[in-house]
């Protein structure tokens, strides 16, 4: 069972993501509403997989991702964001994200994202 951390400042989005985990061997070890909380949870809970929003208060997802890759570079990160420009997507991939989903995301999009994220080596 892999450990999952869900990071999004919207509780509705966190719930939507949680609803699509039934087919995966993932245990939710925490949820966070900003990058700062997320980093604390990464250090404390050591998740294998993280879903990460970008536009969040206190610390945004890109800053969080950069710091996360320094302390836990093996973490598989899937960005789920409304920022739909290519440059931001490329920046996230350069910083270490493995997958990138543009909001709005359907339940099918989320499952496809998890399929790709968990099957990648």
């Amino acid at each position: 069972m892999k450990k999952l951390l869900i990071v999004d400042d919207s509780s509705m989005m966190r719930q939507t993501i949680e609803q699509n985990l039934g087919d995966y061997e993932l245990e939710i070890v925490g949820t966070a509403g900003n990058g700062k909380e997320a980093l604390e949870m990464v250090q404390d809970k050591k998740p294998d997989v993280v879903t990460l929003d970008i536009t969040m208060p206190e610390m945004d997802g890109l800053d969080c991702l950069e710091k996360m890759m320094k302390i836990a570079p093996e973490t598989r990160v899937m960005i789920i964001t409304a920022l739909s420009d290519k440059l931001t997507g490329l920046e996230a991939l350069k910083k270490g994200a493995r997958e990138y989903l543009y909001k709005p995301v359907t339940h099918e999009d989320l499952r496809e994202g998890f399929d790709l994220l968990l099957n990648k080596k």
Partner: protein
Amino acid sequence: MDTQQEQFEKTVNVFINSVDNYFTYLTKQSVSTSAPYVKDANEVMLKECTGMIGISGNKKGFIYISGGMDMYRDLIKTYVGLDNPSTNDMLDMAGELSNVVAGNVRQTYSNEFMITVPIVFQGSPTKLKFPDDVPIYVIPIKWNQHEAYMVIGLK
């Protein structure tokens, strides 16, 4: 029609496409819009539940989407699957809707179009004040029989 007006109308269309895409993609029900109009300085275009985003970069201003609780309740039921969302859930959904509509505009304007995290509020806050030097356009929208406003102030 002057160039500035044409540019603004293009921007408004980008936002209209973005809000339509949000609802159509997630709920399979499209949005209908009425003709945009300029808001009077003292006109308050707010419904029960509002999500507002600040915009900076090469364009400056704000966008908000304001709708009734019933609209957000239906959206949450359709998308998240919750039958009885709390007021906080509906405010959260209002913020997320505005965030996605504004964030998707970057597909057209790239990362020079910067957005803040959403501010959400219920009703009509007394301290809400709009800038005097920015034209404010109101776009009435209707989704699933629910009427809402998308309001854009940009320069």
